[in-house]
Each structure stands twice: as structure tokens, then as C-alpha cells.
């Protein structure tokens, strides 16, 4: 075997230093804090007490509930919508280029700017959304009406992130050889069975990535909502990160640390479940309908 040049490690030192300062040390600090009660510069080891408090905290629990409903809701909307849009997009020529750029545009906008755009969009005095709803006699009010606020946040997320699913599916679709569609045609498959047995199975890997990314990102949503509704009215649109930020701002570092870690593990576990389900569905030797 060839001896590797160990000096290479030397060049990694700057990167490792940066990493340790901006990632490793903060994470260790958070873990450390989560086991202590911290106030006015003093810290007392209190074991798992912070974790127990978080799990019993009604504010945390209701935010978690809202968060789960929100994340599943936007997946339910964005995945089918994204697939549908990608199916309808032109496959080649200048139209394909135009469509790709148009669809991808929202992805280029920074998260907080998205929030500002939608805030202007939905404002009672100058926004287009209230004007639109007023046409139908509905008195839309993002600031005071909980239902309006919630659906506005959902709509904003759909607008911002469905393009990601579209782009992933679009590339997935283009990778399906024509022969598969031709074979389905010859086999007399309907449009639905062609989609069900040819297209969808071949989109599995891109959809797995898309769903995981969307789940993780939506679970951590903060800036857009903060800009649009600030978590209100009341706590209608206060998601997990909102609770976390308010704890950190209130200098509850121990409690915040425990919350962060629980937050992290929830994302990890749910993502892992998604991953297992998505990579296994349809691949195992399914029992035939009859044999």
C-alpha cells in the first residue's frame, strides 16, 4: 500500500478551526447549557430538569402541534402541486428555459425578503390580497384574523418553496427514457396508470430528497413568518423556532438549549422515518394482487 502524505492534514487546520468556532463549540455550549440553570452569569447543574420543563410546557406543546400540522400541510400541497407543474412544463427549446427561470425565481429571494414581499402583498391598506378578497365580499385581515394569517403563511411557503419540488421533479422527469412511455402506450395503459406505474416510481429518488428538504426546512421556518405575521395574531402562527427565539431573547439559555436539542431530535427522527418509508415503498417484493 502507498503511504499517504500525512502533511495534508496540516492544510485542514484553518478549516477545522473555523468549524470548531462556528459549529462545534456552540453546539457543545448548547448541550452544556441545557443541563444547567443559568441566570446572571451563574450556572447550576440541574440535570434533566430543563428537558422535563420543555416537554411539559404548554407553549412548546401547542407550538409543536402547530408546527407539525403546518409541515404536513405544506407537504400535502407542495408535493402534488410541484409534480403537477413539472408535468405541465415544456420539455425543450426556449420555452423550457423561460419556464425554468420563471418557476425558479422565488428560490432566489432571501427568506426575510420573501416575508417582506408577502407583508406588503397582504397589507390591509395597500396589498393586492385584501383587494382581491374584497371583490368577493370577504373581509381579509392578516393582522387580526387567525384563519387569514395562517393560510397566508401557508400560501407564502407554497409560493416560495413549491419551485424546489418542481425543479427536482422536472429533472427527474427528463431522466425517464422515452421507451418507458412508449411501452406503456403499447400496453394500453391509461394516463393515470402511466403516471402511477411509470412516472411516479421513477420520481421516487428526487421526491425523497424533495420531501426531506421541505420537511426539514419547513420545520425550521422563522424569518418569513416573523416578517409576515410575527407569530400572530395571538400565537396562531407561532411555530417552534418562534418559541425558541423568544426564550433565547429572554436569556433562558438552559431552557433554550434543552428546547433546541429536543427540536433537533424531533427533526432528525421524523426525517429518518420519512427516509425509511420513501426508500422502501414499492421496492420490496410486493405480494402480487393474485398469482
Amino acid at each position: 500500500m502507498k503511504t499517504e502524505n500525512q502533511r495534508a492534514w496540516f492544510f485542514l487546520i484553518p478549516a477545522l478551526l473555523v468549524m470548531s468556532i462556528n459549529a462545534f463549540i456552540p453546539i457543545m455550549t448548547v448541550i452544556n447549557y441545557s443541563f444547567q440553570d443559568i441566570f446572571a452569569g451563574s450556572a447550576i447543574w440541574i440535570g434533566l430538569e430543563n428537558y422535563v420543563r420543555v416537554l411539559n410546557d404548554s407553549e412548546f406543546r401547542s407550538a409543536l402541534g402547530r408546527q407539525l400540522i403546518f409541515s404536513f400541510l405544506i407537504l400535502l400541497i407542495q408535493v402534488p402541486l410541484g409534480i403537477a407543474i413539472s408535468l405541465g412544463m415544456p420539455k425543450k427549446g426556449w420555452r423550457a428555459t423561460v419556464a425554468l427561470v420563471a418557476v425558479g425565481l422565488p428560490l432566489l429571494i432571501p427568506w426575510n425578503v420573501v416575508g417582506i414581499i408577502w407583508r406588503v402583498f397582504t397589507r390591509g391598506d395597500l396589498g393586492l390580497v385584501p383587494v382581491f378578497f374584497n371583490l368577493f365580499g370577504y373581509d381579509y385581515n392578516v393582522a387580526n384574523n387567525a384563519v387569514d394569517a395562517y393560510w397566508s403563511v401557508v400560501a407564502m411557503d407554497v409560493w416560495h418553496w413549491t419551485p424546489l419540488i418542481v425543479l427536482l421533479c422536472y429533472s427527474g422527469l427528463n431522466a425517464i427514457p422515452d421507451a418507458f412511455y412508449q411501452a406503456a402506450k403499447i400496453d394500453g395503459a391509461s394516463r393515470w396508470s402511466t403516471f402511477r406505474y411509470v412516472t411516479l416510481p421513477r420520481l421516487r429518488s428526487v421526491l425523497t430528497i424533495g420531501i426531506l428538504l421541505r420537511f426539514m426546512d419547513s420545520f425550521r421556518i422563522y424569518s418569513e413568518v416573523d416578517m409576515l405575521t410575527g407569530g400572530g395574531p395571538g400565537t396562531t402562527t407561532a411555530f417552534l423556532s418562534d418559541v425558541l427565539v423568544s426564550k433565547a431573547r429572554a436569556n433562558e439559555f438552559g431552557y433554550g438549549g434543552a428546547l433546541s436539542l429536543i427540536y433537533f431530535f424531533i427533526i432528525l427522527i421524523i426525517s429518518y422515518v420519512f427516509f425509511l418509508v420513501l426508500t422502501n415503498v414499492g421496492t420490496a417484493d410486493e405480494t402480487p394482487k393474485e398469482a
Partner: protein
Amino acid sequence: MAKIELIDVAHEYQIGSGDYAVKDINITWNDGVSSALLGPSGCGKTTLLKIISGLLRPSEGTVLLDGEDVTGLSPQERNVAQVFQFPVVYETLSVFDNLAFPLRNRGANKQEVRERVHEIAEMLDLQDLLKKGASSLGAAEKQRISLGRGIVRKDTTAVLFDEPLTVIDPHMKWHLRRKLKELHARLGLTMVYVTHDQHEALTFAEQVTVMDVGEALQTGSPRALHTRPAAPFVGYFIGSPGMNLFDATLQDDGVMVGDLKLSYPSETLQGLGGKKLQVGIRPEFIEVRSDPDDGAIKSTVEAVNLTGSSLILDLAGKGLDFKVRVMEDADVNEGDTLYATFPDERVILYADGRAVKSTLKEAA
């Protein structure tokens, strides 16, 4: 099963471009024939196959199935099955459900589906795999499933193959090809097999069509393609090595190739003036001997190549360079002098890329 006819078929992918993928196609496949479309990559054979299956509507011409015009019909209306170059299976379905797919799409009842799928699985040696997921299988098995889906319907009119053995391992190729022949014998299927491999085409098919740059140059039995190639391209594309071809010029009562004069009756030569003339003869039909012979071409052996079963000699004489196939035990060395004869009935005269009819003699 059905008879397939293509009448004056032509196709441009961009209408009006004048850039034809295939043109002037007139071919008939009789009911139950096993046939091949043979040609180099890009010659239009896959386009032609799509026109037969109905995946592509030709920009000109008519497609007949058992005498009925099906030019505008879709693949499922024609009941034509196709096996693709890369095996196509429905990956989330079991082998059973894959085979049942075309039947269920046509609303067959459970009893019918079960019987037919088991019957086909037995023919293709897939019985033991029925419960397996199709995605877990190898290319050769997938290709058998793909074929099975084609023949599972009883009303399948023809099965088309688009280079179906490309991604199959060599040892499985032989097996699969034999399976195809067996199925053909058993079911009497009309089969059209597209390939660029002359060996595959000539061993599989009773009728072979040779194509080049969008044109069908010759349709005939493997033997006819060998003994009477209707175009220079057929001559050198089929055979290994291919036909010897020489440029020829018209002279009095014959044609000149190099310093050799070949005599032809005047009616053969009529109307050949101004056309590009070529003369062809296959290496295996040239007779050589070591002692001088009247009228034979005195030639020098420039190279001796052993191909296993025979020797291929590169000869030069009378201003011609040509290859000759002789028995492997012949005692020939480089630099030897040999006397070569071109038997009259083996020499074919071509004008503008087509054989001059009267020179296409029936081979004994």
C-alpha cells in the same frame, strides 16, 4: 398474427425540411415471418420500427395490417407489441403484475389473466419469478418480461424488437435468441427484429431487409443477401470481409476494372452511359490456383490473414486489390504468385448503387 405492408412510406422528423429519416420504403412482411431490419446506426431502422408499431405516424405513405389501413391508428389499436433496447419493466410491480398489465388494461377478467400469465411465464421460464419484484431482476430476465408483456395478449398482431440484446450478457444473448426462435416456431408470430449486427440478423431471420441512410436497399433471405447483393452497400456490409468492389468504366462491349476487361452482352450495357459503375465479387467466390490458367489474373499475395476457419488473402493483380477467402490449410505465403478467376455468375455489375438486373444471376 398479421401481414404487415409498408407502401411508399417516408418520414421527416421536421416536416418540409427535406431531411428524410426514411424514404421510399416498400416492404411486405408475410404473416408469421421472422424478419430482421439490418443496418448501421442512424440508418433509420428504429424510425421504421416506430412507424410499424404506431409510435410514429409517417409523414408520407401507408401502413397496412392484413390489408387494412392502420396508418393513423395508435399502438394499442394496432395490437402491435414492441421490445425495446433497454428492458422496460414496471419497477414497482411484481413479475406477475407486469405480465398481467396489458391484459388488465384491456379489462380482462381474473380467470383469463391468471391462465394467460401462467401460460406465458411457462414459455419464458419465468414461473419461479412471478412473485418477485420486477426491479430486483437482471437485464436478461427483464427483457423476457418485456417480451412476455408483448405476447401475453392473444390478439397481438406482431412483435417488434429494437436491438433487444444490446444490454444482455453474451452468454445470455445466445440463450435469449434461441428462446425467440422457439417462440416464433410455437406461436407463429410475425416478428420484426432491428439490429446492426449481421450475425444476429442472419441467424434469426428468414427475411432480412438491409437499410442504409433511410433507404431499404434489399429485402431477401440471408442466402440471397449473400449471393446476390442488390447494392454495393449490402455487399460490403454483409459478410466478413465484405464484397470486393471495384470502380468500373464502360468500354465497347464490356466494362474495364483496373486492367481487366469484363465482357457483357450489349442489352446489359444499354443505358449505363454516364452512370457510376462498380463491379463486385465476394472473397469466397473468387477461385485461385497456383499454376497458370488461361485468362486468370496473375496476382501477388500481399498479406495472409488467418481468421480461424479460413485464410483471407490480400491479392494484387491487373491493377486491382482484392481479398480472397481460401481454406485454412492452403499453403500460401506472402509474395507468392497466384492465379485468380472471377466466375462470371458471381460477378455483379452495379450502376449508381443498384445491381444491373441481368447480372444478378441465380446462384446455383
